[in-house]
């Protein structure tokens, strides 16, 4: 098994306006996979589908070698999950929540749970319903980590948390991953946060996975090129063109993907002059990828 999560031809419809169609996704074992996308793009729905919480209309989902949803409970025993909102019972105390959660997991690590509770400064007798947003986020992360998961599924785990709590939570995840070699699927629209921790990236938009690649390829492969004398038709490029805009005079600005330095020679053969190659940060790459996907989707429609 080389992929912790493997999805093929996944389809799901929620209401009249949102659908996931023919989704293919691979999360390699041991990777930290950043699941990027704007709000409402289908990240949370995809996560709920792969955890067996929603029934797919079509397609196959395999998580840690188990078919989902039929074998979801086997997979869930090896997964630590942090949803985007507090999902715990508000009338229980922190200590009662730990005991309740532990009763469902054979892999529950009592020592680690207590260590994290102290590290996160959570009082055992405090009621879950009275926890601050930061404390609730830390408690959910504690529950996910103390089951010693092989796969961590984090849905917007730091959304709305202050920078200190965010750092604590991310540090706990990274420490766990470095110690145990677990796979992480982390969904977020906070692009810079993903840039720091992820080694794979998937970009979701409108229920489609519009890009999936190693982080280094995403970061280094997407460039902004300034070109003069650009050819009218650029069909046979060795790179993919995400966007093409006219700037001053006969100059054009192209946003391209799969770029390598040796591709500069292509411009000489096409009577165009490459003036500048500009590196994009992850957020710009993300925005350009989304824009290109939407334009392509619009054209297809």
């Amino acid at each position, binding site marked *: 098994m080389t992929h912790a999560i493997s999805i093929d031809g996944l389809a799901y419809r929620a209401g009249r306006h949102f659908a996931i169609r023919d989704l293919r996704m691979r999360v390699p074992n041991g990777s930290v996979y950043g699941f990027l996308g704007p709000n409402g793009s289908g990240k949370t729905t995809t996560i709920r589908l792969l*955890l*067996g*919480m929603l029934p797919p209309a079509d397609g196959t989902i395999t998580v840690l070698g188990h078919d989902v949803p039929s074998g979801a*409970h*086997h*997979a*869930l*025993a090896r*997964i630590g*999950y942090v*949803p985007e*909102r*507090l*999902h*715990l*019972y*508000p*009338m*229980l105390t922190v200590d*009662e929540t730990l*005991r*309740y959660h532990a*009763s*469902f*997991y054979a892999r529950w690590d009592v020592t680690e749970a207590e260590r994290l509770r102290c590290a996160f400064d959570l009082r055992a007798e405090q009621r879950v319903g009275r926890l601050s947003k930061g404390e609730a986020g830390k408690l959910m992360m504690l529950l996910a980590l103390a089951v010693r998961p092989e796969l961590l599924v984090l849905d917007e785990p730091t959304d709305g948390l202050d920078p200190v709590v965010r750092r604590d939570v991310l540090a706990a995840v990274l420490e766990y991953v470095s110690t145990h070699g677990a796979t992480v699927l982390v969904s977020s629209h906070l692009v810079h946060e993903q840039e720091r921790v992820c080694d794979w990236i998937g970009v979701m938009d409108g229920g489609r996975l519009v890009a999936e690649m190693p982080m280094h390829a995403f970061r280094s492969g997407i460039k902004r090129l300034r070109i003069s004398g650009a050819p009218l038709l650029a069909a046979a490029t060795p790179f993919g063109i995400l966007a093409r805009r006219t700037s001053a005079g006969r100059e054009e600005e192209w946003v391209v993907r799969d770029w390598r330095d040796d591709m500069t020679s292509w411009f000489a053969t096409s009577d165009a002059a490459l003036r500048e190659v500009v590196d994009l940060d992850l957020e710009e790459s993300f925005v350009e990828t989304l824009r290109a996907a939407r334009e392509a989707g619009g054209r297809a429609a």
Partner: protein
Amino acid sequence: MFGQTLYVQWKWNRDFLAFYTAVGFAAPLLILWIALPHLGLTSARELVSVGRVVGITSAVIAVVAGLTVAWHGYGIDDRVGHIYALSLPITRSRALGIRAGAAALILTLPALGVWVGASLAASQVDLPTTLHSYSGSLASRALLAAWLAHACMFALRYSAGRRAQLVLATLVICIGVLGFATEAVPSARGVIMRAGDFVISNPGPFGVLFGRWTLIDV
């Protein structure tokens, strides 16, 4: 797992359970204390009537307790979108089984209240030799009624989810229409009455709710 679920159910429902247990305990005593001064010591018929009032009150308490625990118990997951329950590593059928079992266990408390209250109430009365008190039977029956009511509401809530109110309203309307039909369509009366008798009489599915409920009887 079951113990923890039981604890969570208890903590979530304990206010209602305490209320129904207290009412189940107090109702037989109060009814007899109110009724006794007005009864002749040898008035067997009046004692049986009072026993019936106690029995019917116990039935109502048991049914309402069962319905409340099922309706309210669903809310614990509904308010968090069922995300927690669905993310636990357990099959849905097993989760529902554990949840139903835990609820069945905590519903013994109101029945226990009825048993203790009814036993104390019965001990306050000098029964003629022809009459007997049935506090144990009454409590057992209250427990069965609470379980049945809970099971019906539990099935409705977990199968219909947020549409439960709609389904419930539809059921009430259907019963109303059938009641109207027995009057308006004489030819259908026999069929409807027979079906109704089957449902509410022993050994029909709801027989335990509609049979003779009494604390004092011959």
